[in-house]
């Protein structure tokens, strides 16, 4: 059986830019050797399938990318805030559990219908990056890359629901490497998390630019009439990611006990802002009268 051609450089660049290449094979090196050397897997029925092996890689990549997002909303003393160049001595989004908040929201509560998920998955399987950006660190062995790509394709084409956090992370990472191609390598797993604060802002500027066709920039093929909808949706997503990240960072979700409907600890956002220092109240002694003493008006 002839060995298929290795994926073209543009496919390699795409995988690098959405972060999968680095997380799986590069500095992250999260992908089990059995995927890279499938001969072992093929002869050992006890080893998990490639889908099972790539799933945690993608989940780790999404989490890492979204750590980069939430510290953009509320920096703290964590490594992501340091990489971003805005460390803070007081707790931030990581301590406030904002990344869990975003992942849970995206994966479990944003309705992500198949009619959108399938083209998104297909786009990730076939996506190319021929944007003329010189990317460093693409010297992965073609045979390894091909197998990684096949594992990704197997996952994306399986019947499993695609968690929305992965394509969102892919979007942020694509934009990150547009802003700074060097971000394909470095600390953390994801290109977006490697950006400075100003570079992250530039990535959002690309997403938000109302006169650009982001779908075209992404080189993703959507059938009409979905293409126009996806283009508009991405502009909404750009804003929503920022707003949701800040809402999550300053809210109580990380310390809220759904069963007792009480707080396990004081939320980070409450401590920073001084909100209700003794917890929830029935009322406040803030009534100081009626303006100019007037309690009633009429025509």
């Amino acid at each position: 059986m002839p060995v298929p051609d290795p994926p073209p450089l543009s496919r390699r660049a795409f995988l690098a830019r959405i972060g999968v290449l680095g997380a799986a094979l590069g500095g992250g090196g999260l992908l089990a050797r059995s995927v890279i050397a499938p001969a072992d897997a093929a002869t050992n029925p006890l080893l998990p399938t490639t889908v099972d092996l790539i799933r945690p890689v993608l989940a780790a990549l999404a989490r890492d990318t979204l750590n980069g997002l939430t510290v953009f909303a509320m920096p703290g003393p964590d490594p992501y805030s340091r990489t971003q160049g805005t460390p803070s001595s007081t707790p931030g989004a990581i301590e406030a559990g904002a990344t869990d908040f975003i992942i849970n929201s995206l994966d479990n509560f944003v309705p992500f219908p198949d009619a959108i998920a399938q083209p998104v998955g297909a786009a990730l399987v076939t996506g190319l990056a021929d944007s003329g950006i010189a990317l460093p660190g693409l010297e992965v062995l073609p045979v390894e890359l091909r197998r990684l790509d096949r594992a990704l394709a197997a996952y994306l084409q399986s019947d499993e629901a695609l968690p929305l956090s992965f394509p969102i992370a892919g979007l942020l990472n694509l934009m990150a490497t547009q802003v700074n191609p060097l971000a394909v390598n470095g600390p953390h797993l994801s290109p977006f998390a490697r950006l400075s604060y100003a570079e992250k802002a530039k990535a959002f500027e690309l997403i938000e630019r109302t006169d650009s066709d982001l779908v075209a920039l992404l080189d993703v093929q959507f059938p009409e009439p979905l293409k126009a909808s996806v283009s508009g949706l991405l502009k909404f997503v750009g804003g929503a990611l920022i707003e949701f990240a800040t809402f999550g960072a300053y809210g109580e979700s990380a310390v809220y006990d759904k069963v007792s409907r009480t707080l396990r600890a004081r939320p980070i956002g409450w401590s920073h802002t001084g909100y209700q220092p003794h917890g929830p109240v029935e009322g406040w002694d803030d009534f100081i009268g009626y303006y100019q003493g007037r309690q009633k008006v009429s025509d």
Partner: protein
Amino acid sequence: MRDVIVVGAGGGGPVVAKELAAQGLDVLLLEAGPRHANPRDEWTTFEDDANNPLTGYLRWGPSDRSKPAWFREWPQNSFVWQLSGVGGTTQHFYGNYPRAYPGVFEGYDGADKNGYDVDHRFPFTYGELVPYFEWVEATMPVMTAAMGHKEQTFFRGAETLGLPVQTTKTTHRPSYRPQENAILQPGGTAGKTASSELLVYPKATGCTFCGYCFQGCMRPNGAPRNQFAKRSTDNSYVPMALTANVWARGGKPIELITDAFVTRVHTEKRHGVLTATGVTWLSDGTEHREDARVVVMSGGCTENPRLWMNSGLPNPNGWVGRGYTDHFFDWVFGVFDDYTGNPKGVGSSARLDYPPYGGLENVGLPPALAAFAGTLSDSGIRGQYKNGRGQTGPWDGPAGRVMGPELKEVLSHGLDRLLSVLVITDDDVEAQNRVTLSALPADENGPIPKVTFKQRKRTARTLRNREFMARKAAELLRGAGAKKVYRIDWAPLILHVQSSMRMGSSERNSVLDARGETRAVKGLFVADNSALSNGLGGPNPTLTSQALATRTAEKIFSTYFGGDPWVRSSSPVVSTDPRISVRLGQLGL
């Protein structure tokens, strides 16, 4: 066969239901979401638990919170804040009940008459609506807002602008005042203590200054449902509709069915005239159908057009879903050295009206919503990028998101040393701002709506009004002593919704005739904010919408049931009436 089926138990539907129940009609009220019958067991005071649009108990989605919310397409950076559940968006509103500006009505002859949206006036006079304003004001009841420190701070700023204080219900000129709001004034211990033991009904009555308007009102603790301070329709009109036999002579209690999503309005030709005959709704995946002599659509500005289109009803002039107005809000806030009382007390108890430009009101918010409000922008991120905008003016630096390290610094200065001002624009009715059906997949209730707002391409008058009011907001905050003032330049945050099924005098650009009946289908009425002819000049829409719904109820009664109007000839019962409380208790409601 019912007399009347009302679709939607939000701000408008319960008004029609209650008024017609009082006349003895057989009324079925259908609501897509839950009725929160026991808020003390179902609600908290926490922002994520309450207001998360995906998972909160006040969200746009099914009652079962483990299921996803109902997705709606917004092809721009924006946020359309719909709520399901009895009360609709009045569950999270601030209870502000200003009257529409007289200049948005036909026949207005003030000196500024050409300054309004002159092509889209109400098809009758302001005077025609006054008895209905008064009726709703007495029913809720609407009162002059009590003052806390954030209002005191707002007034301190307003006093520097050279404007008079408004001491009437009607707004005649640029002026400022405490809100007229549907919040019971504090009585007893309310507003005077933070001690939970003392804040129990009836030791405390009315508003306890808890600051949780946006999380739903269930205070004072221990009060009957119809004595809660905030007069959302789940606390006022719905309790009245459910108990109509005890407070109205000949009244007949409505039937309320929740978790009932109406998917279709049925019609047939009668004597050559297309006429409404009933509705189909889905409940737990099962279809139900009932017939009625009159159907009233009260599902809101986004869902009414969707229901219309999914029912295949005619749209000869193309105006179903068009002309959506939203007051094109903006957000300006100041950082103070001194205590401002934000976020205690009613969410917003002070306002400034500026016909024919719009208005301002103060808004108190808890931390996560304050962070959300500071990062929803069409102007990029301050100091980083402007997204082609980033206006400059009497605020500090360019408009844009306050983000990351800057947001943390601002909020860590203390939430109660901030004062936020909502900029309300008198915005024009425009055909391009509209609801259509989305190309994205349908949900279990049918094809979903798409809400398009071309915020950068609005009329010159709308854009000018917004800039004018944003400057006034910054000047007010400076006058109040703010050390720093930020303008966010909000992306469309669609909370005040109006006019997507508008009533008008012209057949060319309206869906409803001057009686609130649809031009295309007889026996089909619209009674909620979508029926409004325009954005009212900027005043918060609920009072005008409910006044119009009251008038529409009279038109239904006189046109289809041979009855007489009652508003000019009788007195309303107040929604806090103890007979209602007692009956609710007997019914276990």
